[in-house]
């Protein structure tokens, strides 16, 4: 990857993080940790990998994104706003009465959201269905599925994984945000999920693990083409990535920061952005 391309993706990721903090600042609370952990992934997907048209969000042969960890809506909304799916100012309506940007992703409300998610595990099967539909139609496009590590506690995830490999739904790319934490604490303490890469390999995937907060590694992983088997990418990430204070907070799944906390975090992010530029 060229230095310029990498710098642009890092800038995009930083802008997504700024968007997330601005959304949560406007509402006063929100799912900040798991949103920040996938900012780099979303920057690579919307910056380089996915084929889409913000002016025609329902374009049939677009690549699709299913964020099965639906509570990371704020991260996806920031990416969509930055790419022009809807005005950036709308981000401030997160979770306001009557908003088009609810906590959890909703395909009926938000341009660019391909599937409604929120009840963990369900997005996996929905993504399989979307990808299978594209395959039946002979469309040359991919569906990217983002699953939380804690979410893999849900049995439905493994039903969908089994189906994906068994029926060779190879136009579906599984991406697991392995940020090591879920609502009640560390995944290894709540319900140990052991080695995700090995699990996906055993389920019939071509599985790899990369640093999910390194845009270059994420880009390389997403550039792989599925040959015989579907691809599963385990992203090693940090929950709350980008702001040390949030990374180190014990309960960072959902936070209710004060406006001055958000301003401090925004300063950090704007400074990082300036340094990148």
């Amino acid at each position: 990857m060229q230095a310029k391309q990498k710098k642009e993706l890092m800038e995009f990721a930083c802008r997504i993080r700024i968007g997330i903090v601005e959304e949560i600042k406007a509402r006063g609370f929100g799912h900040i940790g798991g949103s920040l952990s996938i900012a780099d992934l979303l920057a690579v997907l919307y910056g380089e990998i996915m084929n889409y048209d913000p002016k025609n969000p329902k374009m049939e042969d677009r690549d699709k994104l299913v964020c099965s960890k639906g509570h990371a809506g704020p991260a996806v909304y920031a990416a969509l706003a930055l790419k022009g799916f809807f005005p950036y100012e709308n981000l401030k309506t997160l979770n306001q009465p009557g908003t088009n940007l609810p906590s959890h992703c909703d395909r009926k409300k938000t341009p660019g959201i391909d599937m409604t998610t929120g009840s963990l595990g369900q997005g996996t099967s929905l993504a399989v269905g979307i990808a299978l539909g594209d395959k039946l139609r002979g469309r040359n496009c991919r569906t990217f599925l983002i699953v939380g590590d804690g979410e893999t506690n849900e049995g439905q995830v493994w039903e969908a994984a089994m189906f994906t490999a068994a029926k060779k739904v190879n136009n579906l790319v599984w991406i697991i945000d392995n940020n090591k934490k879920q609502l009640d604490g560390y995944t290894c303490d709540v319900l140990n999920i052991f080695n995700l890469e090995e699990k996906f390999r055993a389920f019939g995937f071509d599985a790899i693990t990369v640093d999910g907060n390194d845009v270059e590694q994420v880009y390389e992983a997403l550039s792989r083409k599925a040959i015989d088997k579907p691809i599963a990418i385990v992203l090693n990430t940090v929950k709350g990535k980008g702001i040390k204070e949030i990374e180190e907070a014990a309960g960072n799944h959902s936070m209710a920061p004060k406006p001055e906390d958000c301003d401090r975090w925004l300063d950090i992010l704007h400074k990082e952005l300036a340094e990148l530029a």
Partner: protein
Amino acid sequence: MNVIYTGEMDTRLFKNVIGETISELLREDENVVYLDADLMNCIGTAKLPKETDRAINCGIAEANMIGIACGLSAAGFKPIVHTFGPFASRRCYDQVFLSGGYAGNSITVIGTDPGVTATFNGGTHMPFEDIALYRAIPNAIIVDITDVSMLKDFLRQAKDLPGIKYLRVGRKGSAKVYSEDSHFQIGKGIVLREGKDAAIIACGIMVHEAMQAAEILSQDGIEVAVIDIFTIKPLDVELVKTYARKTGTIVTAENHNKIGGLYSAVKDALDGEAKTGYVAVEDEFGEVGPQDYLQKRFGLTSDHIARKVKETINKK
């Protein structure tokens, strides 16, 4: 549509008709996708011609199957899903509710072996609550199938309708009620027999029992109307109210728990406008046995209906 009821049983079995109709729909409409959860052999679809890649066996994973169906709907397909009733309702309820209804996807769910028709599979496989569950999904359509003619017509209609469609149907046969190639209007009940003293509102296997009960009552000089309501949601409120006014006594008959099913829907609609009684399962779990035994055990026979009608007419 003609009512041809004589009490004679149809030689055709529901399971074969489901399989044949799905096969036809796959051939006729390239947007139809059929998904099953390892129960293709139970409805004769395991032998579908191999030319279609739109018949998909998802294995024993109902939640995943519903999710995939909903994803296919989002991709522009018309999914038809089959499994046994308990697995088509309780087992995957959150998936039907959220991935389906809430997310704005459209799927047709066929739940076979409702209530006592689960016979020798017993209590684990005997849904007396599937109607209650589906009724609580906003805008869902629920049809309890009466006979082969209705089954064929409704399967054809359902695939093109938006939202969640739940089709409750046995696998064995039923009495012949309607002429071949009848067309049914969803949400419009059918008056099978007129009567001035009371009206029996029935669905599914209880339609035949209701017609038999009307004969029994007639011999005692009580003339009852029989209505095949078949769509439990949306309920034909107008028809129910008309017969409540006309006869003053309404008795429902359903192969389901009294809680949350047809009786509950009719009672809600009437809001005290008539004397009401029900023939339904008294809030119990199912058990194993032949269907005639189970109908007696759970109080779902023509005799039970006849007694309930007399009792309800005599209510103060």
